[in-house]
């Protein structure tokens, strides 16, 4: 069984409610992402910016044998991949974070302040936690963020996937963004 076919089977199983399929799926996706990312960083397109949608789409188009998938439509497929992406990234972030804490090195404040960012693993984990908190309060908003952030879907695509109007998606997005931003700030403050 080739990897492409394997993924298709696993995705179908996951969609039908088989959570163990996801466990088998993630290392495959992970490896593929790694390969793509490496090519984006070091390869012939080393200087082109890496776009989320491209990455996601490329990963899945390579993994999934589209001919054999009974996806109702492309949007559904993208929504599915957004969720998978979120799982993969959070998983990756957790494993990386564990590595780093084991390193026991001294922290420097300069990086964070001057270079505009912090370890992305901490970001992803915090965002995932905040999204879970948001889902408990308003599931749709959480899904809007998942689709738009992790799936790289446009407002219209998100609207189709969730079967609501684009205006609703936009309002959800704006509010959820502000809310999450605040949650993340609070989290950071607590950690400090």
């Amino acid at each position: 069984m080739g990897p492409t076919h394997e993924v298709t089977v696993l995705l179908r199983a996951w969609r039908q409610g088989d959570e163990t399929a996801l466990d088998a799926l993630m290392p495959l996706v992970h490896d593929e992402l790694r390969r793509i990312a490496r090519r984006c960083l070091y390869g012939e397109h080393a200087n082109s910016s890496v776009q989320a949608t491209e990455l996601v789409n490329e990963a899945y188009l390579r993994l999934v044998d589209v001919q054999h998938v009974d996806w109702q439509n492309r949007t559904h497929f993208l929504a599915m991949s957004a969720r998978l992406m979120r799982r993969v990234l959070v998983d990756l972030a957790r494993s990386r974070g564990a590595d780093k804490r084991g390193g026991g090195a001294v922290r420097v404040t300069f990086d964070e302040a001057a270079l505009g960012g912090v370890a992305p693993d901490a970001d992803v984990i915090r965002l995932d936690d905040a999204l879970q908190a948001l889902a408990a309060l308003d599931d749709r908003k959480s899904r809007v963020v998942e689709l738009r952030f992790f799936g790289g879907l446009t407002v219209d695509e998100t609207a189709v996937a969730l079967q609501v109007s684009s205006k609703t998606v936009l309002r959800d997005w704006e509010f959820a963004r502000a809310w999450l931003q605040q949650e993340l700030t609070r989290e950071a403050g607590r950690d400090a």
Partner: protein
Amino acid sequence: MTPERLREIEMLFHEARERTPAERDAFLARACAHDSTLRREVESLLAEPPVGMIDAPLGALVAELVAPPVPRLAPGSSVGPYRIERLLAVGGMGEVYRARDTILGRGVAIKILPRHFTADPERLARFEREARMLAALNHPNIGAIYGLEAAAGGVRALVLELVEGETVADRIQRGPMPVTDALTIACQIADALDAAHEKGIIHRDLKPANIKVTPGGVVKVLDLGLAKAATGELQSPMVTEGGTQEGSILGTAAYMSPEQARGQAVDKRTDIWAFGCVLYEMLTRHLAFQGETVSDTIVASLEREPDWAALPATTPPMVARLLQRCLEKDPKRRLRDIADARAELDDALSGKAPAMGLGHPAVGAAQSRWGRWSAIVLIALASALAGWAVRRLNPAPDNPLSNATFTRLTNFEGDEAQAALSPDGKFAAFLSDRDGPLDVWLTQVGSGGFLNLTRKSHMPTVRPTRNIGFSGLSWLTGRLKWCGPPMARGWCITPTPRETRCSSRIVPASAPNRFLSIRLWEDTTIIRHGLPMVDGFTLHAAFKTRGKWTCGGLQPTAGNRNVSLITTRMWVSRHRLTIVTSFTSRRIMRARAHGCGRSIQTAERRAVSRTEPSSTCRLPAAPTIVVLWRRWPIQLRACGPCRFWITLRRMETRNR
């Protein structure tokens, strides 16, 4: 929080957003009349910074997460010409290494930029542009950026000056700081900021953790301007990354100016605020604005006054006043220019201020003696200059320092003295005692390489009383014989043929028919390509008096004892730097000291401590003037040896 509550907040959030900011307050006051918590929640959501992690492209994040982590660089490995020695520190996303520049043989700090940062070409390009600008900023109190290095595997590294010593934050932690120490450090911070502000560069993230004090007591301000380089024009580092910074967030918020906290445009007055915060903390060991959370801290800086009673009793009153002016919430009412802070601190340190009187207990006896001495000389100098300037206001001089870029030429351990430029502006020779007794050193401007001409050579040991200069012949052509093995970096030194009156010749091994002749001059001889000098007047400085530039020099009583002050005016005409000298006797100097305005004194004082042209020359082909500057350590209190700098100033054609 319940789903109902969230819906309530959301409804108000959207309704408020549809209104203009002016209407918003009234709307929220009405809608949340009975629920102040609700209003706060909505308001804080409305005020959230517009850009954050969620808006960043996922691709960069994915790339960073999926890509294998940048491997730690092993000692002995190389990044460009830099050989890694050891890991200094690890940040959340990058490592700082101590490395050695294998070409220049000096220690550097190498900072590996995070992958998600280098993966975004636009961001990287902007960072490179900024870094280039910051690299041009050379000041002894600013940690220099040497360059941006691209290494194998897409790794980008920032090459920084290696600064030994502890940070001011560490120093504050260690224990109470004497007021004099705090003021001395503050002086140097102000000096660094002044130099940056003059070039239009704002630090934006000044805090004790960003300031280091070397074991020799020299203050180095680090990461100057990098905040902007990394995040762009409009974003303050803290607000943008508010949600994502670990640990440093509280540290940064405490030094953030009110306008920065509000996300408004910032200018140099933001640095003045942070400077006030740092000085306050050095004096009191407490943050000027403190809160348990980030928001509390920001509210404190927006609304509360620092605890002025916490200042130690020995704080000079003028310093307390200065702090109040630095920590004015309204930038319009804040101290305008960091140079004013510098001048005030000088006065406080030298004990010159009327409020303090001479010999204030906080200031050491030796320092006040220096202070008095310097005050007398400077008042005299200022008055003489002022009087002289009134007599000779024409022609209006250009500022010879505008558009000039200063590049540090030397940074040897020990003392450096007596530099001279070659007539073509391509070489500089100077004396240094780095390798023992004073030697004559030669450097090619821009090469970064140095050649010790007198070490282990046939040339006599140099006495410090000698001046050094190049012969007017510059590059001579002709045949010559090799003498001895080549010296460092492809140069060798040869005996001079009798027909030229040079002491020595320096010959590049690669082009044996071209050589540079060099000559040591006896004491009090005029340096041929230097500024006009009379009777051994050797020190020169540029002054700004009432917006006009001029320069002058002091000679401690030597030679003609009646003439102790020389003033020199310089201006730039087409392709030429003109210098006029005049004298005043010591008696006149004293007489004039009485009617001297204070603003002029401080202006002159700043200038004295700064730079002095040591040698200058004009390049024949291009309309460019090269000036070799001697940079004296600030003030008369010893802060380290002097260093030489070079500037290339492109001349503007005036009659366009």
